[in-house]
């Protein structure tokens, strides 16, 4: 079996430190904050009345998504997140199944 675990070793900052807040706790909390904000901005974007307000909140939404992504990448670099690759047979199986469903979509003949 090939190695399916993907990740970096934990840096010292990525260790938790008992009952006090560590850098890992702080960055985890900030990522949660960004997630919360994107949810809020998403609804506000959808509900906004005039176009310039809609555009302003949309910009806040996309920039906050990017910020959350940048934070996630830093956490990945520091070894806070590890990922696991799916098993190849299951991936192949999913491809075959959904590739066969393509014929159900009326537009599929027009794709490309």
């Amino acid at each position, binding site marked *: 079996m090939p190695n399916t675990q993907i990740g970096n070793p934990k*840096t*010292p*900052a990525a260790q938790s430190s008992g009952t006090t*807040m560590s*850098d890992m706790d*702080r*960055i985890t*909390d*900030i990522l949660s*904050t*960004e997630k*919360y*904000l994107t949810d*809020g*901005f998403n*609804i*506000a974007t959808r*509900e*906004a*009345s*005039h*176009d*310039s*307000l809609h555009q*302003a*909140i949309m*910009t*806040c939404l996309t*920039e*906050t998504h990017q*910020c959350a992504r*940048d*934070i996630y990448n*830093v956490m990945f*670099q*520091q070894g806070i997140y590890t990922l696991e690759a799916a098993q190849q047979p299951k991936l192949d199986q999913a491809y075959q199944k959904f590739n066969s469903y393509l014929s159900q979509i009326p537009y599929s003949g027009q794709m490309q």
Partner: protein
Amino acid sequence: MKGASIMQQQMTGQSQAQQPMLTTPPQVITGKDLGYLEDQMNWLLVAAKKCSHYAQECTDPQIKQIIDQAGQMHQRHYNTLLQHCQNNNNSVTASLPAQ
């Protein structure tokens, strides 16, 4: 419903025939908009404060920097939304066609 009735007036050419049709909502902050703006500015205020506070406590320079960047972005977004609260609703609504 309102839009439909305006179009009908235009097509039938009745008394208020000169009224222009609104294609998009005018630059008015609605009561609903204001509610959302206030919510968002409250979240951003707390988020910016939290980032600034956490960044000061961080020991790892990379984590400190990314948290500081997030805090500055929240402050910028706060200012953007605040500017939308400076809208002159009175002057915009005054120029709208009468219903």
